[in-house]
Structures are given as C-alpha cells and as structure tokens.
C-alpha cells in the first residue's frame, strides 16, 4: 500500500501503481466511522444514565428508549402512518399547485411583476405561526396539518421551478430562436428539461420542511400523529416514548429525503452525474 506519510522513494524497484482514490465512492471506513462513533455515544449515554441514576422521565437511557419502542410499536406505527399521510398529502398538494404557478409566472411578465414580489415577501412569514390560525379556522382534524405542510413546501418549489424555467442559457435560446420554435416547443423541449434539476433542489428542501410542518401542525392540536404522541407522552412523563417517537420522526425524514434523491437520480441522470 502506498503510504503518503513515508518519503517517496526516487527509485522504485518493484512496479507500483499510484492509487487514485475515487472520492465519489464510499469506502468501508466512510461507512464504519460514523456508525462506530454513534455506537460509542450511545454507550456513553447509557453508562452516564446508569452511573448518575438519571430518572427515566428526565432523560431515558437508550435501552429504555428501545424498550419503549418494542412496547409501544403498535402506537408508534399508527401515529407514524398519520404523520406520513399528512406529510405526503401536503407535499403532493404543493407540487400540484406550485409548479403550474411557477410556469405561469415565467410565461406571463405581468403575472410575474404582480405576484412574484408578493410571493417572496410571503415566504418570510413564519409559516409555523400560521398553524394555530389554521386550527382556529378548520379545526383539529388532518386537514389543517396538510395545509401547514403545503404552506412550508409551496415556496421552495415555486421559487426553484421559476428559477429553473428561467435558467435556459442565452446560447440555447439563440439556437432555439434560430429554428423559429414555438413557445410550446420551447417549453416542452428546452425549458422544462432545463428546469428539472432545479425543481429537484426545491423538492428536496421541501420534503425536509414537510415533516417539520406536519409535526408543528400536530403540536398545535391533534388527536394523532407523531407530534401528538411526543406532546402527549412527555406531558404524562412517559419520556422514553417521546424519544422513541422522535427517533421514528428522524428516520422518516431521512428516508423521505433519500427517496427524493433516488427519484432525482432516476429522473435526471445527466445532472447527477456531472
């Protein structure tokens, strides 16, 4: 093995290839290092919880969280499905409304001038603060949560789609104009494919926001969902359950993000491989 720490020999008797490490590929160390660190942290946590006899309602040890996981698996599963449903429904709703709006903004200069500055202004409104109002107007069902998710996802998708549609290079525009392409042809053959990688940037931001949006909606007032479970179990001093719900939430968020990335890889292989 070539060791860079050793001074290079100027005269190599044996034939030796210089090993070029492909940075894109994960080595065993890349995978193992964070995993080992994580396990060590868990052990330290466990040890500290036992040694200092921290009460479980204050900070449960990892084993207690694992125990809660097993005992409450039915409830965790049910509440996860509710949160997942709210997240995906809100996310889908925002895609369905945001992409056409972005197309209209790009195609109509008047609409762009009228709406776009307002949209950017509205984006600075903390959507979290709207959640109680939505509960006040619509009640405590699933719908207000979906709307919170919709609100947090909507802006990143509109902005990224509009940016993407407008990002066709002047050279490509010259090419397409020299062929007298119609607006529709330009959209289908040039603008939309150009925008797709940008749209995925927005979608990946939105999907992480979406889970947060759903939980916040549940915090405000709900009868189900992981946010409700965290709130309910911590108020009843069942902290291990709250932690278990938190773990599920984290996993849900990570899985959804990587799912988006997988879809992106399939949909825009040319952009990912660059």
């Amino acid at each position, binding site marked *: 093995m070539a060791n860079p720490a050793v001074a290079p020999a100027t005269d190599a008797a044996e034939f030796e290839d210089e090993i070029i490490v492909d940075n894109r590929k994960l080595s065993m160390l890349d995978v193992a290092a964070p995993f080992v660190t994580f396990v060590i942290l868990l052990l330290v946590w466990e040890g500290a919880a036992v040694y200092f006899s921290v009460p479980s309602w204050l900070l449960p040890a990892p084993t207690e969280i694992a125990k809660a996981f097993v005992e409450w698996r039915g409830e965790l599963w049910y509440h996860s499905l509710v949160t997942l449903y709210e997240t995906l429904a809100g996310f889908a709703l925002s895609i369905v409304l945001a992409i056409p709006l972005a197309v209209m903004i790009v195609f109509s200069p008047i609409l762009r001038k009228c709406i776009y500055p307002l949209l950017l202004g509205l984006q600075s409104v903390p959507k979290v603060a709207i959640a109680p109002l939505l509960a006040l107007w619509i009640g405590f069902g699933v719908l207000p949560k979906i709307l919170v998710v919709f609100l947090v996802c909507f802006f990143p998708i509109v902005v990224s789609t509009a940016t993407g549609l407008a990002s066709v*290079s002047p*050279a*490509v525009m*010259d*090419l*397409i*104009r*020299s*062929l*007298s*392409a119609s607006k529709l*042809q330009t959209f289908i*053959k*040039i603008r939309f*494919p150009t925008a*797709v990688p940008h749209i995925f940037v927005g979608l990946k931001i939105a999907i992480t926001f979406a889970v947060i949006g759903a939980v916040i909606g549940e915090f405000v007032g709900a009868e189900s969902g992981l946010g409700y479970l965290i709130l309910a179990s911590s108020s009843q001093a069942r902290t291990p359950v709250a932690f278990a719900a938190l773990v599920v939430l984290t996993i849900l968020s990570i899985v959804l993000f990587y799912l988006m990335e997988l879809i992106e890889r399939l949909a*825009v292989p*040319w*952009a990912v*491989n*660059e």
Partner: protein
Amino acid sequence: MSRVLSLALGKVSGRGGPSMLESGPGGSPRKVTIEHLHKTYLTSSGRTVALQDVNLTIGKDEFIALVGPSGCGKSTLLRIVSALIRPSKGKILIDGQPVLAPSNEVGIVFQQAVLLPWRSVLDNVLLPAEILKLDMGKARKRAYDLLNMVGLSGFEKRYPGELSGGMQQRAAICRALIHSPSMLLMDEPFAALDAMTREELGLELLRIWALEKKTIVFVTHNIPEAILLADRVVAMSPRPGRISEIIEVDLPRPRTLDMEFLPEFKSYSDRVRAVIGHA
C-alpha cells in the same frame, strides 16, 4: 470551374438534396446581399457603434470568413444575417428577399457546442428536425449519415457529457446540417478547441462543404484558419466595426494543412494582419 463541378457532385451524392425539406425551396443555394448595414447600441453610458456601413455580397456556395479582432462586430454581423438581432439601419437580402425572421434555410454553429445534456448525441442532432416537424424517419437516416461523416458513428446513444470538446462541436455541426440548410453560419465554431482539433475540424468542414455545397459564413479571429478555409476573407476592424478589406484567396482546392507554408499563404496572412491593424 471546380465550384460547378462540386455543386454537381453534391447533387449526385444526394445526401442533403432538396428532398429533405418538406416545404420551402429546399437546398437551393443562396446569394446574400448586405447593404449599408449599421448596428448601434444605446446604453446609459452612451452610444456604441458595433457596425458602421457594412456592404457585402456573398455569392452562392461561397465560403466567406469574417476575420478581425474582438469587438470588430463580426459576431454581430453574423447574428444580424441569421436574424437573431435586427440591424439599426440598412438591410440584408437573401436571393433578393429581405430577412425578417430566422429561416430554416440557415444552420448555425456557435462557439460552444450548446448540446442539451439530457439528450443523446443522436437526439441532439435531431432537435432541429423535431422543431421543424420534418419526416423523422428520413431525418434519423440523415443524422446517422452525418454523424458517420464526422467520425461519430458509434457515439449516437452517448450523452454530450461523455464527449470531448471536439466531439461535441462535431455533433453541433451535424445538428446545424440536419435540415439541409443552404446556408451555414458559424460563429467562431472552433475557438474553444485546442489547435490540433481545430485544424482537423477545419479540414472536415471543407470535406463536408465539398460534398454538400452551401454558402458558409465563418467568423474567426484566427487569420491562418480564415485563409485556409475561405474563398474570400473579409477583414474587419473595430471601433466602429466596419469592413476594411476583402481579400480573395486563390489557393487551389482541396486545401491541405501544408499550404500554410506556401509563400502565397504568408503574403495573404500578412495582408490580413496589416489591414486589421495588429501585427
């Protein structure tokens, strides 16, 4: 003369015959007349004269090189001929007709290949055929022929990102030729390539031109390249952009790289250098 002969050959080869186009006059060669052309830009910092009183007649099937230092308006002139931008004054006539909108009788090659990264090489070449709604079966066949002609057969299904700069520009030339335009406008097409690829592609362009005669306007800032390729070199000078001299290049065809060592070549290049005003 030899030009007449090549024209006849082009028709016999039948690759880019008029049959390719479903509408319009097809591959009929054209004559371009540029009369008293001016182009000025008005910005907050003042008025810039990009072109001043440009007059030029380009014959049918002629290979014209526009050469000059940057800022002499040669690309602007090409963009006006292709109707991508409008002149401030004056007119351009193609076969006696004023140019108002980009025509599908024109193929354009830019300095960058401008290939769409999500389309394969073949689909990139076919883009004009799709937009102009040509017969896709025939267009596909022609695309394969063209790619074969520039040495890209076997690369049809590859993506532009997998190709070298020279290969990308070859594909871009095929795309400009797919609809058998009678005029090819090239805006410093080889400027981004290394010297060797550049010479290779220049000769390849001449080979294609010999097979399919068409009017070519070739913008470059490379004087030897202009002389090697063109029938006439239009030398332009900057501020304001105008034609300072038109030099007829009387070297035999087919042209070869070793012609650059001929004394005539040197005298042409000295003349061009002298008129565009940088030694």
